[in-house]
């Protein structure tokens, strides 16, 4: 953390001398004993939503404070009320939400029940916002420059050509290269990271005293995330802006903030200095969170006792197979897509470029890469959903391109996918029973009664109650749906399960649960996993072998431990360094 600060100051000094000048008075304010007076104080805040069945409390008696120039983080899972707190501070509670009790004091003034006009004066110029999803938070029909300029004009910072100049300057400070030209472009011409920089530019355009950053980078690749957060840290420390991070990621919170507020079900369960909380959590919920947080210091998960025993039996019974028993091998896979370039001319995109690997029985191979690295394309080729342009996939030594359609159909039973999006991977029109039964029906296995029994067994296997089979996907949480998806994948007793970002969309605790379940199942059923992910921390917990991919090519491969201990390539090192909170030692249980 400290290390990050020093390096950032060095860069910051040369980058934004002007901003620093403007921010000089802020810094002075801080020096003059403003330390004692909080910038923002939230006292016994209560927020509730009106629904057809009554009021639903979303925040209950929340207390915390932010001092000028300080960075704090509110940490919690989805539904914990962390975003609602932020929305209440800036007066943007959605729909039927209302502050039902308590106080929000900003600069000593009660802003709990401002009029619309008072809020308009506050927003932008005193409290800025960097929203969560860069894809939906910029208006697609206005140019980026216009959207920054708008903030300046609305807060009477500048007008006309001066606003234009300032806007470009702000975009430059936010780390947007070639800002002059870029400011004339529209949001759809920007990548996610670029858009987030533009949003940071908008949030800081009027030099607010407080910046609310609501999950500002959760939609971005890790390396981009790190660069943007570093930059944000420089900017805010130069401007003396206080920052309120809203995040689900404990590691990120601890790395960026000095003070943490942990929320759970609308309440603040624990708060205090970051390191103190990570190393000495007191509330059981915080303890759970810290334990579940995947970070560099975590180890490969091991199966529970029972599962381990049965795994032992399996390996005994198949002792004639050697350790290097290979279930699947891919050789020199290449996939080329024809795409259209900016001017409509035909182009070739080598989505997968000469990728080879093999998976041993009962082990996990992880393919790690950022968006556009071609990792999902590899998964789709293995699953037979895409045809490789060249190269071959051997399944237990048999080249799959030589298989007849009937043999290919049989092969599909041996290899099953679990996809990323727990909301998209189950047909919403089918009951859970029908979802899990579908593979059995397609492959015409068993009678009705046998299939029903099998579905019940599978639900047991993924630790879901049997009563869940009558429910519909819409009623289950993300984690539960992912369990159903795993049960469906296991229905046909596959040997290989392809997990395409299977845990990325889940909350930390649920993610830890699912990872443990996968580890137990692997030991129990001697499964082989192909783990496709962007998240190196998860890889560390669950993989034996790792391949790092970038732009369709293999950058590095090797055993998981070697790769983390001794990365050979710069890109791998960047990825490892980008894991938030990677270097912070955590509390490790009682």
């Amino acid at each position, binding site marked *: 953390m400290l290390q990050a600060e020093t390096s950032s100051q060095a860069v910051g000094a040369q980058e934004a001398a002007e901003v620093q000048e403007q921010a000089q008075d802020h810094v002075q304010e801080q020096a003059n004993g403003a330390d004692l007076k909080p910038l923002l104080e939230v006292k016994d805040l209560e927020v509730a939503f009106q629904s057809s069945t009554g009021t639903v409390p979303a925040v209950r008696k929340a207390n915390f404070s932010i001092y000028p120039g300080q960075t704090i983080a509110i940490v919690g899972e989805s539904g914990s009320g962390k975003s609602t707190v932020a929305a209440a501070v*800036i007066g*943007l509670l*959605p729909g039927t939400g209302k502050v039902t009790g308590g106080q929000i004091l900003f600069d000593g003034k009660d802003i709990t029940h401002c009029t*619309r006009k008072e809020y*308009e*004066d*506050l*927003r*932008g*110029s005193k409290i*800025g*916002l960097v*929203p969560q*999803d860069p894809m*939906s*938070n*910029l*208006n*697609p*029909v*206005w*140019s980026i420059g216009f*959207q920054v300029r*708008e*903030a300046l004009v*609305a*807060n009477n910072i500048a007008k006309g050509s001066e606003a234009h100049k300032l806007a470009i300057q702000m975009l430059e400070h936010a780390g947007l290269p070639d800002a002059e030209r870029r400011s004339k472009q*529209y949001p*759809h*011409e920007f990548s996610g990271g670029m858009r987030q920089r533009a*949003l940071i530019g*908008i*949030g800081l*355009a*009027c030099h607010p005293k407080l910046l609310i950053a609501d999950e500002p980078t959760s939609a971005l690749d890790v390396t981009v995330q790190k660069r943007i957060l570093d930059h944000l840290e420089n900017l805010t420390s130069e401007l003396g802006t206080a920052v309120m991070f809203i995040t689900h990621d404990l590691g990120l919170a601890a790395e960026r903030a000095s003070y943490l507020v942990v929320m759970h079900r609308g309440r603040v369960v624990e708060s205090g200095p970051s390191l103190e909380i990570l190393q000495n959590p007191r509330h059981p919920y915080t303890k759970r969170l810290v334990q579940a947080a995947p970070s560099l210091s975590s180890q490969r998960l091991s199966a529970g006792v029972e599962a381990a025993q049965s795994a032992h039996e399996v390996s005994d019974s198949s002792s004639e197979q050697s350790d290097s028993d290979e279930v699947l091998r891919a050789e020199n896979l290449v996939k080329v897509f024809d795409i259209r370039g*900016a001017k*409509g001319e035909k182009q070739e995109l080598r989505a997968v470029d000469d990728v080879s690997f093999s998976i041993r029985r009962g082990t996990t191979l992880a393919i790690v890469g950022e968006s556009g690295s071609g990792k999902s394309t590899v998964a789709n080729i293995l699953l037979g959903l895409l045809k490789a342009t060249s190269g071959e996939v051997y399944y237990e030594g048999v080249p799959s391109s030589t298989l007849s359609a009937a043999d290919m159909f049989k092969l599909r039973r041996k290899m099953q996918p679990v996809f990323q999006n727990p909301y998209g991977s189950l047909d919403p029109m089918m009951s859970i029973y029908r979802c899990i039964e579908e593979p059995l029906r397609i492959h015409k296995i068993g009678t009705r009664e046998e299939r029903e029994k099998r579905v019940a067994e599978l639900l047991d296997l993924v630790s879901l109650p049997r009563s869940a089979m009558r429910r519909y996907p819409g009623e289950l949480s993300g984690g539960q749906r992912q369990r159903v998806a795993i049960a469906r994948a296991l229905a046909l007793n596959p040997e290989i399960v392809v997990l395409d970002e299977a845990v990325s969309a889940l909350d930390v605790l649920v993610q830890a649960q699912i990872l443990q379940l996968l580890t137990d199942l692997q030991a129990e059923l001697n499964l082989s996993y192909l783990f496709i992910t962007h998240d190196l921390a998860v890889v560390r917990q669950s993989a034996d072998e790792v391949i790092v991919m970038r732009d369709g090519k293999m950058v590095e491969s090797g055993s998981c431990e070697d790769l983390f201990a001794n990365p050979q390539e710069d890109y791998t090192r960047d990825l490892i360094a980008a894991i938030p909170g990677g270097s912070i030692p955590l509390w490790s249980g009682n």
Partner: protein
Amino acid sequence: MKRYVGRRLLQLIPVFFGATFLIFAMVYALPGDPIAALGGDKGLPPAVRAAIEREYHLDQPLLIQYLYYLKGIFTFDFGMTFSGRPVVEVMADAFPWTLKLALMAIVFESVFGILFGVFAGLRRGGVFDSTVLVLSLFLIAIPVFVIGFLLQFIIGVKLGWLPVTVDQSMSFKSMLMPAIVLGAVSFAYILRLTRTEVAENATADYVRTATAKGLSRPKVVVRHILRNSLIPVITFIGADLGALMGGAIVTEGIFNIPGVGGTMYKAIFQGEAATVVSFTTILVLVYIFTSLIVDLLYAALDPRIRYE
């Protein structure tokens, strides 16, 4: 942008030929023998009949007749009615009426539809919203001719505010009621479309971000809610011109307007093939032309389209 417009233009070519050919084939199948009718009770001598058939290429197969017809169009020769009047003259009489009527209807439906729709959408679920929504459903449910009769009877006859039929000078006052009747259903659709779009865009993330910048509410509404909501509404309005011109027949009947609908109605019953086909061709061209304008507007309003 150029690519996009070029592609749309290419796509509209088969539409033109397909639509005109379909109409041509349908008219070809119309029953009756207009040539025989020319001769009256006495009937035409066979030689005269053959001469007429040759002149109008009626002795050729359908496809050849269609090609002759196309050739005529591209040389601005729309042929003659059976009574010897050039079809172009008939069109010159009828089209100004319908065009003026349709344009007035478009102005009426857009102005009021958008106005009501915005207010309803901004206060979704409120009293105004609910009332306006139910009223718009009534407008869609009641056939145009009933609305026409009622307005004519109440405003024209009982109250005497507006003339019951149009006058030859196409005065604004006499055309007002027909235009409202013609635009009534589209008014309801525009209102509902605007309302849905506004209500949806009002909850968009970028609107929240704009509010968080410190923008005043009116600016947020105009720049970020309205600007985005109007894209589909404007494309609807653009596409509606062709539909109104082709669908004006009922309104024209009620208010005795000598426009496209009435002329074609008569022509169809008399088997005046040249008139029917020419009129429809013009209407198809209006549709194609407005489609193209709509595409251009769409590209101008939505930057995402320009780079497709």
